[in-house]
């Protein structure tokens, strides 16, 4: 779940589909969103990604120290320590702060990935334009309370976890936009909750509307805010995002979101029998 790619960042210019084949390649990459955005801020989400050397080296070194009288033991202890050192170096653990942070986070955080898709019976230009103004989204995203524009690329989000009163806030920046094709964003440094995501827009053949594909990843930090965020994330699911997209579609296609909230009913608390109840022995007989 929480594996992230390492090494080279993908330059933004690589994100523009240059051809049909390239678009397909991008779709494959989509399954690993982190390759689109830079790695989120180090603190909070970094883990020990490559424990093999550390563990292997540690075991070897301990065995070696235990058998220090033999030539093999000394050799093993030496090689083991070397491996441990390499492992620490590779995981950037040679300074104490990093070591503590990494140990805290290792295994403590799981990214939450959600995907959803829907088709909207409107031209792609219209769908894209509506989505691009993110402030429209708070009307259809049930857990998002507000989205405020900071500038062209930056937005401030305020969300409430489903079924709770926990609110979280973050700023997001748009890191890649292809008009009528895709929008990629991620949260900025220092956000309460790290997330990155991508919305793709695809025209269906024969002017049959627009497909939207949403893919969002949330990275929970560990530590003191962990519980709040964990609760928040607990409420986020594919279904929640699917319902958000559905409301967006309905707003675009019909101008409203169909509802039965507030309609009349014969629930016992809001109604009463219109007639005296029948005696059970009586057989109902219409007056015909």
């Amino acid at each position, binding site marked *: 779940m929480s594996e992230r790619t390492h090494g080279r960042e993908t330059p933004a210019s690589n994100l523009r589909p240059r051809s049909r084949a390239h678009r397909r390649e991008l779709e494959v990459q989509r399954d690993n969103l982190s390759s689109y955005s830079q790695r989120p801020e180090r603190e909070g989400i970094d883990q020990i990604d490559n424990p093999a050397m550390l563990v292997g080296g540690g075991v070897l070194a301990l065995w070696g120290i235990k058998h220090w009288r033999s030539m093999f033991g000394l050799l093993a202890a030496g090689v083991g320590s070397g491996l441990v050192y390499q492992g620490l170096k590779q995981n950037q653990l040679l300074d104490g702060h990093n070591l503590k942070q990494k140990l805290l986070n290792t295994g403590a955080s799981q990214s939450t990935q959600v995907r959803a898709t829907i088709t909207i019976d409107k031209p792609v230009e219209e769908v894209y334009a509506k989505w691009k103004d993110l402030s429209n989204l708070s009307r259809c995203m049930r857990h998002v309370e507000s989205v405020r524009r900071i500038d062209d690329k930056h937005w401030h989000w305020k969300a409430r976890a489903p079924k709770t009163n926990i609110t979280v806030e973050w700023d997001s920046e748009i890191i890649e936009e292809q008009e009528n094709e895709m929008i990629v964003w991620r949260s900025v440094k220092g956000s309460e909750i790290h997330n990155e995501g991508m919305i793709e827009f695809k025209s269906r053949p024969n002017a049959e509307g627009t497909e939207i594909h949403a893919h969002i990843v949330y990275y929970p930090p560990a530590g003191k805010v962990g519980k709040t965020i964990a609760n928040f994330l607990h409420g986020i699911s594919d279904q929640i995002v699917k319902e958000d997209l559905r409301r967006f579609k309905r707003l675009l296609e019909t101008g409203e979101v*169909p509802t039965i909230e507030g*309609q*009349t*009913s*014969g629930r016992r608390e809001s*109604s009463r*029998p219109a*007639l005296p109840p029948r005696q059970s022995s009586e057989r109902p007989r219409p007056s015909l």
Partner: protein
Amino acid sequence: MRAVCWMGKHDVQVREVPDPKILNSRDCIIKVKLSAICGSDLHLYDGYIPTMQEGDIIGHEVIGEVVEIGNEVDNLTVGDRVVIPFPIACGSCHYCKHEQHALCDNSNPNAHMAEAAYGYSPAGIFGYSHMLGGYAGGQAEYMRVPFADVGPMKVPDGVTDEQALFLSDIFPTGYQAALNCNIKSGDTVAVWGCGPVGLFAMKSAKLLGAERVIAIDHVPERLEKARRDADAEPLHFEKTSVLSELKEMTGGRGPDAVIEAVGMEAHGFNAADHFYDKAKQTLRLETDRPNALRQAIQACGKGGTVSIPGVYGGIIDKMPMGAAFGKGLTFKMGQTHVQRFMNKLMGHIEDGDIDPSFIISHRVPLVEAPAAYEMFKHKRNNCIKVVLHP
């Protein structure tokens, strides 16, 4: 206002409930002039449709007068007499644009529930379970109508309430069932079930050029009505062998199309499969009893069409798939795209080709709905169709 509320299995009550309000700008409120009890309401009554809640207002065959209009509705005025189609349709989604209103993408607020059961969600329906929208129905004094600029149809002055009422459901449903048979002139169509939908299907089949219509049922009065009002040849399924009789009547070829207007609560054709299904349904191992459907598939001639207006809600088993495959049958089914047919059928009523009120057997006040449900369920007093007036 007073409304018929579903309070549990075999328990509908007339209750005093709050009046309906406009909730969205494309809503309107109508004062109900007449509503009817539908055969599919019996599935609710018998507790076979999931996701009903105690207190749900039921009823989906309604004609009324507009009394309040939302801001966005510009084609109706207060005082208009309108008949309301039972499937709620937005008019602007992919399916509505293709006149598949019963498959509207947008009108079911609980689409996720239907998606869990069916993969995808059909349209919302008035008073027919939360899985299909949870909308309050029209067996009441007033009703809220969403997307009022799309569904309700104004009734011309020359047409009475009773004549127009059945454009809300059973007349278009019977018509669509016949249309799905792909009738060519000279065809023979066999119809299982002489209830209101079966009768409208028979009349529509004749309207569409069928040479002969054969009606199958076990209620003598209903068979007689089919013979008299729909010009059908009756077959009593308990007194004869339907399959061999149909072969005999068609020179060994069998019917060109069959219509199954019975649905999920069929009575048995032979004790064995009826009790098998009844037991499984009681134990909830099977939700629907498809006896009539099995027999219709068996009886259909080679290359024929099986048209299913009868309602199914869940899972059936023991389907004669080999017969369907071996004979190369076509299946057509589903809820009715009422909005697609209303204009055309209103034309038939105005021209005097058909007077849908022939179907009505009982007219009772709304407060007597519980007794009327009971009577309709047991087909007492020759009950075929009950109309409720508030």
